[in-house]
């Protein structure tokens, strides 16, 4: 019996020729990631382990992105723990503000994650790197601590669901709509424990930024990882970024899938997820009566250059609706700079939006745009749980950057073709 791409990556990192779904294996890791919320706990666990030195100074990546620039004294203390640890251990990949970005935008951009890698991160959206054909998954702080000490982690080899997207993508439909539609179809635990493998002719021509968006939200379907098969688009993206050797894996033709689901993308419209679960999806044309108080464009889901480009193309020469607050978060310093050079930032500011330094900010209700009781936000982020962006009685709707930008102009959820 053949193996899926995810199973192959696990097998190789466990030093085995073959693994079966359900098998538990111990693997060598390529990258171990932590942020300013999860790393302090992991660092104290690491100290408890009694190791002097981390296993590999180059494989650990620490990104203080959630509450930075430090939002208050507590978050300043947390960030300081990372900074001190990185210094003491001589970590190569610690990113201070000024160089940092939202972790899942930053690592691929900096060439720190590569096809064929096995990656864990003490953050549930670590699955984003599956867009490069890596096996990447979120874990808890104890896993991160042990991995920093030993360079290893244990895994249960997952079964897989194959998602096949065919047909021609309509205008204004992108990766965010494909993944929201998929989650709407299978539910928030539809891929629990499983690998989500994204394939099909509509994927073949999908840009890397759109693929990051899709892999990012695998966890919102309960998935262990989301993964794409390395192709020209992926290899071109990593070519001048990744400075170390890497290997490309593909699923065997006789790999076993628990299920294969097919979607005709030509029938899709932009998708909105209604409160309070990402599975509550509707097409945008069925959502136009929802008035919005705040729009957030950014996050590890949709804070990349292509996302800002599409938002700028819609906002160019227009004004934000007077009753809407629009906050835009470029994912990294590099993305910020590109947006600046391409004139997107000017467009945003002229339209009446605010543009922030890279940070997780309001995505997790952290800072820089918290909602009051009863307020509604439309966000390009990935979670719309109760209270996610502020008051427990506020609401979050999820959409693509195109819909978010169009809605910014109209003050209610709006299809991009209406502005």
């Amino acid at each position, binding site marked *: 019996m053949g193996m899926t791409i995810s199973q192959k990556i696990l097998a190789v990192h466990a030093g085995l020729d073959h693994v079966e779904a359900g098998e538990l294996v111990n693997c060598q890791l390529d990258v171990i990631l932590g942020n300013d919320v999860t790393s302090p706990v992991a660092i104290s666990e690491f100290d408890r382990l009694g190791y002097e030195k981390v296993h590999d100074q180059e494989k650990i990546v620490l990104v203080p992105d959630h509450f930075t620039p430090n939002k208050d004294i507590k978050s300043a203390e947390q960030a300081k723990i990372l900074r001190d640890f990185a210094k003491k251990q001589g970590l190569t990949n610690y990113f201070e503000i000024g160089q940092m970005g939202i972790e899942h935008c930053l690592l691929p951009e900096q060439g720190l994650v590569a096809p064929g890698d096995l990656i864990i991160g003490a953050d549930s959206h670590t699955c984003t790197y599956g867009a490069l054909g890596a096996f990447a998954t979120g874990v808890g702080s104890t896993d991160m601590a042990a991995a920093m*000490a030993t360079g290893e982690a244990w895994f249960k080899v997952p079964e897989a669901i194959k998602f096949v997207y065919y047909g021609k993508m309509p205008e204004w439909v992108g990766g965010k709509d494909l993944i929201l539609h998929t989650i709407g179809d299978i539910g928030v635990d539809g891929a629990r424990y499983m690998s989500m493998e994204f394939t099909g002719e509509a994927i073949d021509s999908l840009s890397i930024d759109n693929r990051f968006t899709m892999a990012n939200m695998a966890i919102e379907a309960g998935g262990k990882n989301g993964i794409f098969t390395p192709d020209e688009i992926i290899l071109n993206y990593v070519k001048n970024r990744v400075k170390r050797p890497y290997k490309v894996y593909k699923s065997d033709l006789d790999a076993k899938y628990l299920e294969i689901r097919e979607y005709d993308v030509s029938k899709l419209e932009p998708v909105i997820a209604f409160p309070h679960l990402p599975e509550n999806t509707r097409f945008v044309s069925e959502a136009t009566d929802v008035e919005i108080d705040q729009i957030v464009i950014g996050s590890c889901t949709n804070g990349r250059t292509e996302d800002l480009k599409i938002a700028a193309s819609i906002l160019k020469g227009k004004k934000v609706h007077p009753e809407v607050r629009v906050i835009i978060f470029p994912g990294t310093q590099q993305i910020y700079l590109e947006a600046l050079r391409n004139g997107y930032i000017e467009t945003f500011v002229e339209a009446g939006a605010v543009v922030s330094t890279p940070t997780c900010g309001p995505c997790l209700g952290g800072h820089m745009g918290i909602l009051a009781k009863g307020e509604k936000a439309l966000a390009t982020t990935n979670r719309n749980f109760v209270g996610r962006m502020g008051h427990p009685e506020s609401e979050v709707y999820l959409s693509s950057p195109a819909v978010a930008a169009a809605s910014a102009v109209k003050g209610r959820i709006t299809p991009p073709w209406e502005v």
Partner: protein
Amino acid sequence: MKLTGKVHKFGADIDTDAIIPARYLNTFDPDELAKHCMEDADPLFPEKVQAGDIIVADKNFGCGSSREHAPIAIKGAGVSCVIAKSFARIFYRNSINIGLPILECDEAADAALNGDELIVELETGMITNKRTGEEYQAAPFPEFMQAIIHKGGLINYVKAKKS
């Protein structure tokens, strides 16, 4: 390792907020967390539970956030093992990592009633219901995971391996 304990039965989709509500997350102390374990699913649980007892639940136990406080609270309450039809992924990992044995077994979960006594053999995955005498086979843990649980969690396991 052989465990014997009394069953506390729960339904499907018990989330991490039900296991340990967010309002108690300002501590890592297992004893403190144990005082509120399963509180939002069964307010009397912290009083009723005795050392060695076993939680039996339906599907998707531990869904929701990645907080390690959830398995810590259950372990802190003295629960020796959780048997469910299925577990949410990060809860599963975190449980093993902090040394809380958890087993997936549809039949055992269906058949067990509140108050039944179960015998669980972690090496083989064999579950015996003392009341009915029936036996159920859950997937046994491989050796290295048994070793993690045996040592009381990943941190102790790695420590022992080092020395």
